[in-house]
């Protein structure tokens, strides 16, 4: 669920822009550093961005409330390219979705990036790291990361909406109302996201472990010199 232009008052979207930029700046720094190490990182990152674009554009209408839900793809992206870089690329993706698909908005890029790119990405990433620390199998860690990242994204954007639009109703109650509005589709979607994240990671691990240096255990795996080291 992306928040459209015109829903949030300027104060709110300004605030979320501010919060998001706090994550984007280290994101840019991280990308610059990794690009210097490995030139294949940039195309890799961009293609991951496309994947996030496609995944989060697959929205399903919710028949009951008339709302719209979709998977995020950011937990997967955070696992593959790192959470800060994910914040950067999902802000770009959100811009494209606003322009091309009428999905989200220009003024709300900050708010949407915070829920999808930052909270979704980081929570998924943390789950993943934690579970892998305890040697959980790849598919399980990926699946739970996908599920948690997805649910967290929706909790956050419901919170953003509620914060600005709770009127005289208590914030928490309005928050839960918004969240419940997405419930009917969100639960199956979170499960789909879990399955998807797990499957993709497993396929990538089986076929191209060199694309997942952090996962195969070797910190500086083969991606560092994938096809064009130092070019």
């Amino acid at each position, binding site marked *: 669920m992306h928040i459209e232009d015109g829903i949030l008052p300027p104060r709110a979207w300004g605030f979320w822009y501010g919060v998001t930029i706090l994550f984007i700046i280290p994101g840019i720094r991280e990308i610059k550093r990794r690009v210097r190490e490995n030139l294949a990182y940039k195309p890799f990152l961009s293609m991951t961005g496309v994947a996030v674009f496609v995944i989060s554009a697959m929205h399903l209408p919710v028949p009951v409330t008339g709302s719209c839900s979709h998977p995020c793809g950011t937990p997967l992206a955070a696992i593959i390219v790192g959470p800060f870089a994910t914040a950067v690329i999902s802000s770009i993706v959100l811009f494209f979705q606003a322009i091309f698909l009428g999905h989200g908005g220009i003024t709300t890029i900050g708010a949407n990036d915070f829920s999808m790119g930052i909270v979704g990405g980081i929570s998924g990433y943390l789950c993943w790291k934690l579970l892998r620390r305890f040697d959980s199998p790849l598919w399980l860690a990926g699946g739970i990361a996908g599920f948690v990242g997805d649910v967290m994204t929706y909790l956050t954007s419901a919170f953003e909406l509620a914060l600005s639009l709770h009127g005289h109703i208590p914030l928490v109650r309005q928050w839960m109302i918004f969240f419940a509005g997405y419930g009917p589709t969100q639960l199956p979607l979170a499960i789909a996201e879990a399955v998807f994240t797990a499957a993709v990671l497993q396929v990538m691990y089986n076929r191209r472990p*060199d694309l997942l240096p952090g996962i195969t255990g070797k910190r500086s795996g*083969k991606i560092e*010199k*994938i*096809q*064009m*080291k*130092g*070019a």
Partner: protein
Amino acid sequence: MDLIELSDVSFIYPDGTQALTDIDLSVRAGERVAVLGANGAGKSTLFQLFNGLLHPERGIVTVKGRVVEKAYLKEVRRMIGMVFQDPDDQLFSSTVRQEIAYGLLNLRLAGNQLEQTISGALQVVGLPGYENKSPFNLSGGEKKRVALASVLAMRPEVLVLDEPTAALDPLGAAKIIKLLNGINRELGITLVFATHDVDVVPLLAGRVYVMDKGEIKLSGPTAEVFARKDLIRAHNLRLPRVAHLAELLERDGQCRFPSFPLTIGQAKKALLERIAEKEAGTE
């Protein structure tokens, strides 16, 4: 001083494939050089070493006498224009016009000059009026033509072409060959190309390298290389068709060819001579 020079170069892909082993190769300015070899021989890998898209594991690549390294890359890539084997890997813009403009903008072309160069390039590859089509909605051969146009438009000093005529229709291929020979002759642009179409080689190359399994097995002027029939065949290649015909005539018939014809023109001449000889010989 050679324009491009590789000495003792090896290359290994990250997955461990040894794609090139101890390559020595040099290209002089203004030359036309063909690289032949079976599938997987390492031709495409070799070409990517020229402009620093790949870096040798061992050995040295120099362009105009200077080693290809980080600080020199920009200049090298500007000098060496490269057409990739698979046009799908090369086309990334949303319209044909933008595709060709991409490299030109990097050369700081603008305005009228830009537009003229673009339409000129499309004219040359036989796709005028395709400016606003998406490169992804083209036929296989049309994609290849756009890829060629996007590089030709940049007028580099060296053109490195990975299978320039693959997927082109016969007339298109003939036109490209003529065009390439033309810019080589008139503008002095150096040509290096790989191809599986052996019949094209004598028309477009003065010198030939034959690769197999990552090594250079044979090199020399075109006629000399094709004279080594046995070696050519040993490396999964074949002779140009007319040369094959001449070989058969020599073996089964009573013809003798002092030097093997490689192109249709040469074959005609040689055969007419043989026939005239026969007529004369029996008088």
